[in-house]
């Protein structure tokens, strides 16, 4: 049983996906801000719809950092 689990691709893939998800917060949002910054500089008009979404993300990020510091 243990051998079967050990050799199962899904064990390793699940662990890696979980680790990636764990790492994504907050690093994913920093990267998204870079993309947004670039788009905002070069295509400012097309990004108005993203503003509220970013506002929410920024608040979530600030909240999570506050939570980590606690």
């Amino acid at each position: 049983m243990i051998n079967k689990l050990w050799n199962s691709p899904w064990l390793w893939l699940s662990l890696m996906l979980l680790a990636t998800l764990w790492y994504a917060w907050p690093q994913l949002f920093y990267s998204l801000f870079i993309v947004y910054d670039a788009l905002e500089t070069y295509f400012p008009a097309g990004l108005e719809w993203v503003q509220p979404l970013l506002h929410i993300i920024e608040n979530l990020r600030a909240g999570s950092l506050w939570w980590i510091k606690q």
Partner: protein
Amino acid sequence: MVLNLLFWIAHFFLFLFLAYISLGYFRSGRASLDLAIMLFLWIFYTTCSLMLFGLLGWLTAPALGITALLVLLLFVVFEPFRNKLFQFLSAWTSFASELRQWWCTLPRWLKWLAGTAAVFGLVRFAFLIWTLPPFIWDSLTYHLTNVGQWIHDGRIGIFPTSTARIFSPANYEVLATWFGVFIHHDIVIEASGLPAYLLGGLSVYAITRGLDGRQQAATIATITYLSVPAFLFAVTNTKNDPYVAAVYLLCSAILVNSFLRDRDVHRGTLLGQMVIFISAVLFAVGTKTYMVHLFPGLVLVGIGVVLKNHKESNANSLIRQMRSELDALGKRGKGLFALLLCMAIFLGGYWYVRNLVQTGSPFFPYGVRIEGETVLESEGNTIDLSPENFLYNLQAFASKFGDKQYRIVPDLSNTTGWGWIIYGMGLVAAGWALIQKKEFRLLFTGFLASFLVIAISLPRSPWNLRYVIWLPAIFAIGLGLFFEYTHQWPVSGRKVLVGLFWFCLGMNGIMSLTYNLIPIDQIGSMLALPALERDAGKFHLQVPVEYESVYQYVPNDVVLGYNLHENGFVYPLLRADLSQDLAYIPVRENETCPQIADELRSKDTRYLFVAPVHTEDYVIGILEKCASSGEILRERAPGLFVIKSNDQ
């Protein structure tokens, strides 16, 4: 300028040729490690030549270039060297064919991934190096201050300045002058870390191959390590840590390939490998002292691999083999080994001996404290070796693990900077490799030992994990080996794995575009300037706007006086073309305006530059009082005080 470019090419070609002809004595039998050793020899020889010319006061493009051309001419005239020269030129064809063979061993998806990563990496490096001037705090304070002043003076030496940290070991800085001295400009000075980047990548490749990983595993490990933000950012940040990391990895590769493999594969090169190992360690000690703290981990790996592979014959057989190799060496080989070791002792020891002679302490300006007892007095920071410091650093590492506190920036503020692939895939893969691969366990133990030893002495700061940018390499190697194991997986599972690797690599790539730090409009403002006028003082990410006053109001053919504190930016005052004559003007707390003016006159200048945050407040206060009283000095522009013309 064309002539200087010719000198630059000649110098590069000469030392590449010398690295090639001496490589014959150091061959490992592993193509990737041979390439890494050849690159190390180029770094080593180039640094040594610049050091000698610099100490003699000949650090100029004509002196370096004409000497290189003359030596090349001698090689063309004398037949044995001429033959070697032709051999060297034809070796590129066989190198290209070996490269093609390696490319053919990779699966299609990896060819796409490696090709995309290589093109992206090249464009990114070229763009950032060309567009941005140096902007990292320590570089502007002392690393590049040394480089710029040495190029300006045509001589390597100590000069009066505000920061005592110019006394730090400086092999990297010597090599960095190569990127500026021929064109007398800093436009490509940030490329000075690229040799370390290549050396680090080749070493990781060679280690993975030495652990019996195939080309595919080694390529994945290499791509992973080369995309680690902490290493990738540091490479173009004009700092010396990438060189220590690259040399550490080279030494690990030598140990793994020399002792772990079947001795028959590379009989006759063990002694040469050990000479390179010792030279590399000494080179790194002369680059940054903390290499001494990494060394025990290497020793542990060395002992471990020797014991593992030579239980029956025991370690004495290795010593016997090295002795027989020494006996079989010709005069030329023995001479080369002796010369290389002498050069290594010179590069490793020069800075410490100079400091001992000039200041009384080999580690000046740093002090050393062991368990609360001051062993060496300091002018600035003190290295604290104590169990408390060790525990503090382990706790600090735990808090930085996972990069949860901040985004990854070049200074690694409160982060490890290991990035998406290492955290998302490398940690799990290394866990698998630790259980499955005995040799990997050995190497991991060595890396862990180096980390634990350096944790005893790490300075307590949010940025201290830049000293361990070699550590993620072990997880990259684990991931490479893990990929090899997944060959037996069903296609669907493998596709998910490859997809995840693409995603994580892409995320590392996105953050690397702007160092995760620089606003796009600031990059735009630099692009708007002509390439040769992108002075470090015009890039206001960290540099105060006052530095612009110097470029606007001070001619570059006069002396500029400056007063900055220990942590102030001296380098931007030299300008991008390293043309400004500088004079450090100390100001005491009770100094009067006439005394300051006298000090300026004695240094043959009427200009005095100060900047908020970079100059002590009391100095700015005195100067402002002088200016408002109308006595002798006036403020010509923000941060720039001049002696009034009628008082000259």
